[in-house]
């Protein structure tokens, strides 16, 4: 579970319009998420899934997560332990899916300078991104309070559990 504390990690930098077919390839669609996650982004960076470390931060360009509604795209990052995703802009379904799995997403300002391997500190509530390698700080739009409640709960499912769970027979 991810809480609203700052997130520290190494940056993995990708380009514009990274789509959900590359995050959760159709060829592995019937496999469990553990298997599918091993192929996450292999079409753009074959090293990524094998080398990414828990807490690392994925950095994208514009329209990150464009494409299908497949939630496995967001789940794959969670499965790999990614701490946060930063991008110039996000596709709406990917944005919603990621938040629903408790993965913080922040929109990068146009002048943000982040290189592969830079160490970052991300504060989703305070709305800052520190590139500690370059010694630069960027102000970003914090995650809105109603979404942060869901992220803090660990995602939509635990949140629903708190609110709507009622005994039913199966």
């Amino acid at each position: 579970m991810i809480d609203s504390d700052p997130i520290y990690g190494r940056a993995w930098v990708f380009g514009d319009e990274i789509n959900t077919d590359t995050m959760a390839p159709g060829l592995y669609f019937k496999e469990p998420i553990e298997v599918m996650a091993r192929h996450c982004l292999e079409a753009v960076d074959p090293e990524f899934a094998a080398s990414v470390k828990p807490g690392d931060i994925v950095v994208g360009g514009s329209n990150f997560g464009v494409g299908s509604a497949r939630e496995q795209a967001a789940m794959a990052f969670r499965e790999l332990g990614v701490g946060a995703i930063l991008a110039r802009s996000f596709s709406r379904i990917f944005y919603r899916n990621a938040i629903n799995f408790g993965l913080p997403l922040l929109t990068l300002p146009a002048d943000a300078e982040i290189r592969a391997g830079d160490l970052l500190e991300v504060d989703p509530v305070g709305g800052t991104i520190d590139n500690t390698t370059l010694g630069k700080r960027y102000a970003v739009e914090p995650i809105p309070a109603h979404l942060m409640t869901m992220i803090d709960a660990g995602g939509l499912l635990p949140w629903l559990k708190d609110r709507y769970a009622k005994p039913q027979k199966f």
Partner: protein
Amino acid sequence: MAQTLVQKIIARAAGQDVARCGEIVTCNVDLALLLDSGGPRRIWPRLKELGAGVWDPDKIVLMTDHFVPAVDAQSAAILKLTREFACHFGIEKFFDMKGIGHVVLAEQGLLQPGMFAVGGDSHSTNGGAFGCYMAGFGAIEMTGVVVTGQIWLQVPETIRVDWFGEFAKGVVAKDMSLYLCRELGMDNAFRAVEFGGETVRSMGMFERMVLTNMAAELGAETGLVEPDDITLEAIRAAGVEPAADALEWRSDPDAVYLARHEFDAARLVPQVAAPHRPSNSGPADDYCDVAVDQAYIGACVGAKHNDLQMAAEVLQGRKVAPGTRLLVAPSSQQTMALAAADGTLATLVEAGATLLPTGCGACAALGAGVLAEDEVCISSTNRNFQGRMGANSSRVYLASPYTVAASAVMGRIADPREFL
């Protein structure tokens, strides 16, 4: 306050008089579309975890389309579970192997102007052709909908796109959509796109659905067309009486749009979107030296009855080029029946096409027609992201059924106007 159509529908669903753009509201869902892909197989375990049931089985529509017919034990198991879900929760609107969900929804007359509908698939935007709000959400959010009947959203601003003038021969809605991907870009998240103008007004529901289907490629929340007599006619043709207030669901004349665009349909030429993005589009002529291994007529967006008729018009009395294969997967059983009855299927098969079962199939590399390394495909589908239809190094060009059929005849990408 003047509102756009999408604002009015959201306001009604949220129980408010008005919905202001940017405002976060909770909406009551009128219809939830679940598919075999992200439906029961992902939702049922979560319902068990929550100890919850479904909020209203009558408002849930369940279809099998992504994994049909089963090609291996895994897809068979997914389909079995989907059928058990329908039975367990008493879902009567269950359409098993009847076709691709977005198309079957329209065929069954399940969409009405003014409805607030959600679907567990990104091309749920397709439904907006009926003047309703319909958008795609991930399975985790569909779980929330299935349990509570509600969903939160931020009221989107609307981009208005008007088309004027008559199409030249060989130019169709798909060419508009590919052209719009380039013109408007694919980064329109949290915005709705409303299509209008005399060209759109003159288009049938099948063609309007191409525009709203590919609103997903624009990255939009949804795409909508204001309802008119053509909309009501389509609902009646499905055996359903249109809602009494159907034609009242329109944008106010003084509604505020984020942007307005006007395009001249008469100047549009057949478009092709080159790998690996739908916005990478240009005149089909520019790609005439590209040899194709596979031509595919399929998917929710590109294999309805009129799409098959377009392909047959080109293929009548012609043959698929040696070294190229043409695969046709009609988008629904109803499409299949209509195309069988009017001789369209016979024309396609005589030309050398291979007929595939109804379903999503090769569109998302889930069924028959997957591409090998380095193969090139021209396809009437809506997405050409890397690896979408098979191996990572395969290359997919998107085009209209006319252009796909013409390319199958030539064995390389071809401008269909020479064939009509």
